[in-house]
């Protein structure tokens, strides 16, 4: 729909301007062939209003043939389309004019014009119709350009807000309060039975939190740094789960040096514990693999699943978070795939391999 139609106030304004433009037209017609002002206005004003409706059709032509980013043939095509539309509009305007002129003469108000004078009027309409249409086309192009820049601005803001949101969500997910509560409970238990262990766990927890905040504040980290953070995390969870939590790791040095968005890996490992290890009576192995294959970095996290586990709500939230962050970080070739084969759940991250500073330090 034409944007004016949705806004009655603006439509009225445009129609008022159209009516006003009837005055110069009437003046021009009077110059060519004298007639009384009322007769000239009665012909020109309604005609301008009708024509305005017709030239608003430039909206669809302009949208069909946008100018932004168009060059060469496309540009010529647009010009040609607009000229053709202008001519068509003019022809319709002339037809309307003929009809209206004759109708006025015959039934309403005869200005006593000759047949030749009437034809002369129609020629004026034909000639003025083309610039009238083109003016409308220019106005519409300007409007479209304005819209586009608005849209671009809005989209940019949206992306920025989205990125911030994702960052916050990542931090919040990382600092999952239940993880903290459970860890505090473990420390509480260790204080009685193994005070040295309680101290180590406090230290580990502090270290993990500090690293999380530090990595979260950066735009990019190396996979090695992410893995070091995951090590801290697993160290803490190991106290809770004991032998039930076993880790296998196969990380190529070339992969560890690659750049990744921060706090991407830990939510996956957390998921592996929450929906894997925690549901298995005897626990199981979390396997973390990272490989560099040409231009791609592949990181996978595997965990066992118990088919008889109670259903837990909120499944997939962690994965969805990671997926959204991949999107926000804008690496178009990035993707996350989750699959289950038998009793093993596997999440595979594929990212473009970008080298960070060599040996992203597995501290």
């Amino acid at each position, binding site marked *: 729909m034409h944007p004016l139609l949705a806004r009655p106030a603006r439509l009225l304004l445009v129609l008022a301007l159209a009516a006003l433009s009837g005055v110069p037209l009437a003046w021009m017609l009077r110059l060519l062939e004298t007639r009384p002002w009322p007769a000239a206005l009665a012909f020109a004003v309604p005609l301008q209003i009708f024509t305005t409706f017709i030239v608003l059709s430039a909206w669809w032509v302009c949208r069909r043939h946008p100018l932004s980013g168009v060059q060469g043939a496309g540009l010529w095509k647009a010009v040609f389309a607009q000229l053709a539309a202008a001519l068509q509009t003019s022809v319709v305007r002339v037809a309307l004019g003929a009809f209206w002129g004759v109708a006025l003469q015959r039934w309403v108000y005869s200005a006593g014009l000759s047949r030749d004078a009437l034809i002369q009027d129609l020629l004026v309409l034909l000639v003025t119709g083309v610039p009238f249409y083109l003016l409308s086309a220019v106005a519409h192009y300007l409007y479209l350009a304005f819209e586009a820049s608005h849209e671009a601005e809005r989209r940019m803001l949206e992306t920025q807000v989205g990125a911030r949101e994702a960052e916050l969500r990542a931090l919040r997910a990382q600092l999952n309060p239940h993880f903290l509560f*459970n860890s505090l409970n473990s420390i509480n238990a260790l204080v009685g039975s193994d005070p040295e262990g309680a101290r180590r766990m406090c230290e580990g927890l502090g270290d993990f939190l500090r690293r999380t905040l530090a990595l979260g504040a950066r735009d990019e980290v190396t996979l090695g740094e992410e893995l070091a953070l995951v090590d801290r995390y697993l160290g803490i969870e190991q106290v809770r789960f004991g032998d039930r939590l076993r880790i296998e790791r196969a990380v190529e040095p070339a992969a560890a040096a690659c750049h990744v968005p921060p706090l991407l890996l830990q939510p996956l490992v957390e998921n592996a514990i929450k929906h894997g290890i925690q549901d298995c009576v005897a626990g199981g192995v979390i396997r973390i693999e990272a490989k560099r294959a040409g231009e791609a970095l592949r990181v996978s996290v595997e965990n066992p699943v118990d088919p008889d586990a109670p259903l837990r*709500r909120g499944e997939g939230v962690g994965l969805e978070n990671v997926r959204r962050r991949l999107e926000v970080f804008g690496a178009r070739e990035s993707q996350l795939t989750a699959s289950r084969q038998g009793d093993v759940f596997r999440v595979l991250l594929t990212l473009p391999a970008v080298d960070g500073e060599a040996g992203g330090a597995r501290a």
Partner: protein
Amino acid sequence: MPERLRVLVVDDEAPARSLLREYLGAHADVEVAGECANGFEAVKSIAEQKPDLVFLDVQMPKLDGFEVLELVAGEPGAPAVIFCTAYDEYALRAFEVHAVDYLLKPFGRERLAEALGRARDRLALATARSQDATPAARATALAASARGQGHFAERIVVRDGAQVHVIPSEQVDYVEAQDDYVAVHAAGHSHLKHQTLSELSEALDPERFVRVHRSYLVNVDRIARVELIAKDQRVIILRDGKQLPVSRSGHERLREQWS
């Protein structure tokens, strides 16, 4: 009220169990009868040891805390339950199923002592009344609260002595009412559960399970056809050939489902 409180500790995390054991050690009248690391063990231990009180974690392997409670509630001598979890979102549910208390990890000795006090009061009251009067009402609350709004039970847990069967709801053919029990027919077996048919039918997805008769709830996927055997009298033939009676209103419900 028992002289000594016999207590079972159920938590899948060893440190959490040892903490409770340590705290409970300070109470001379409390005896820790055992520890369990998952839901199955818990149901078995409760049946065998008949503890007075159970400290129950919510998120565990095999059966979650609510499922454990569902399986042991309503039995004579069912224990009082105190939930222990790091999650506060189950608190409401816990009290709906008449948990004595809800301990949020991490908790201290004083908080545990308070919970123990409540458990003693509850048990004294129960002894005075001889037995919790409304096991069925409890089970209803359990069934309803074992899932949130808009969630239907994905599985039915049934206890047979110390053994627990977990039946995914899509494997159920039909359920038959038998006095205070329901017989859940699935994969050629029949499992008795202490629950009424109405309670169970509320817990299950109404898209899948239709109450076709006062005494029958049927999985619509299992229906082969409905046959008219006399005027206004119909039977359902299941895929395996089994015939079930249909009441008039049951038939209407089925037609609504299929329309």
